[in-house]
């Protein structure tokens, strides 16, 4: 059972029913950088979808999706406050730092979760709202409460939560989802393990102190490095699929091939360089580039489908 419950009990027993946390502390609970990636990927799903949506409705739906993603991040921080407190990377977060009470974070996260799902259902459609509700549930309950502390495959399965936004985006536009957003889902799903395991290689002591069974702590760094390369070798060709299926154009083809090769090169360097500071640098380089990689893929899709910069290629698949 998470220490978050204990902290709530203590908070309720004490006189302090409200913290002095500021708006920026509550905003930090929403994991703004993750929210930004969710906005980019959901918008990618919307513009690549076969159809169109009123721009105001699309923008409102995007806001609801990003708030829903932030709400799940908030519930994650509420549940993980005990392990965040012992990890250097997360000790400064609002709850472990004492700026926000766990009970406040729980109320904030639940309110935004329910609100964002209701708003998406009202402005878009029931399918997209149901998918957002499932995404929040998957991240907050399946990943945070169950998988994260139970299995080294935590971020592999949990990665699905981060991969849903393009499918929700397509559901907003078409009321359904098809191969377009399934491919985008696959890209994010396959991207997640090399991205997080590169960080876990560097921060394995932190994760060990918190008792999180990340792959480097359970299977060892060597096995983790092999898995990183394996996932990247599958990811790079899958990321080219949008160009072959007609919803990515010439720019997407060039960008996905070049950056995919760079991802493979960086993952091979992680495999080869295993000792000392150089190993940490190699892992950090892959971690940092992987963020740029995903952002670039979706930014190009946005530019091609949303801004009319598409030099169409012959459709090979789909």
């Amino acid at each position, binding site marked *: 059972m998470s220490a978050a419950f204990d902290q709530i009990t203590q908070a309720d027993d004490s*006189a*302090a029913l409200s913290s*002095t*946390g500021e*708006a920026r502390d509550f905003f930090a609970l929403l994991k703004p950088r993750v929210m930004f990636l969710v906005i980019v990927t959901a918008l990618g799903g919307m513009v690549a979808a076969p159809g169109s949506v009123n721009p*105001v*409705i699309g923008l*409102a739906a995007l806001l609801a999706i990003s708030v829903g993603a932030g709400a799940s991040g908030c519930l994650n921080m509420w549940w993980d406050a005990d392990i965040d407190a012992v990890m250097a990377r997360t000790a400064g977060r609002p709850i472990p730092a004492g700026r926000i009470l766990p009970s406040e974070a729980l109320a904030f996260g639940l309110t935004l979760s329910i609100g964002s799902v209701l708003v998406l259902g009202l*402005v878009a459609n029931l399918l997209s709202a149901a998918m957002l509700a499932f995404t929040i549930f998957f991240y907050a309950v399946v990943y945070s409460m169950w998988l994260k502390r139970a299995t080294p495959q935590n971020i592999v399965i949990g990665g699905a939560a981060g991969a849903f936004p393009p499918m929700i985006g397509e559901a907003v536009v078409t009321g359904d989802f098809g191969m377009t957003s399934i491919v985008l889902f696959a890209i994010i799903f396959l991207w997640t393990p090399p991205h997080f395991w590169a960080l876990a290689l560097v921060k394995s002591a932190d994760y060990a102190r918190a008792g999180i069974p990340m792959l480097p702590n359970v299977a060892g760094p060597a096995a983790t490095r092999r898995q990183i390369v394996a996932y990247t070798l599958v990811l790079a060709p899958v990321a080219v699929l949008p160009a072959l299926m007609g919803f990515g154009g010439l720019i997407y083809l060039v960008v996905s091939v070049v950056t995919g090769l760079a991802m493979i090169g960086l993952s091979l360097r992680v495999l080869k360089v295993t000792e000392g500071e150089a190993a940490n640098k190699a892992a950090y380089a892959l971690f940092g580039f992987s963020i740029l990689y995903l952002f670039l893929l979706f930014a190009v899709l946005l530019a091609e489908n949303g801004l009319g910069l598409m030099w169409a290629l012959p459709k090979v698949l789909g």
Partner: protein
Amino acid sequence: MSEDPQDKKQPPAAFSPEDMARRNRRSVALALVLGGLVLFFFIVTLAKTGPAILNRPL
């Protein structure tokens, strides 16, 4: 009439002026968010129903 157990609790610790200023800023942020929500629902209503919703007999 039974006594509310909450009443037996210690009164809240006094907030310092700095704490109060933080709470005030938080209240202002909340007010802005609520105002933004009103505007959001107004615009979305117009987008979903069309401007004709404003053209109706009272």
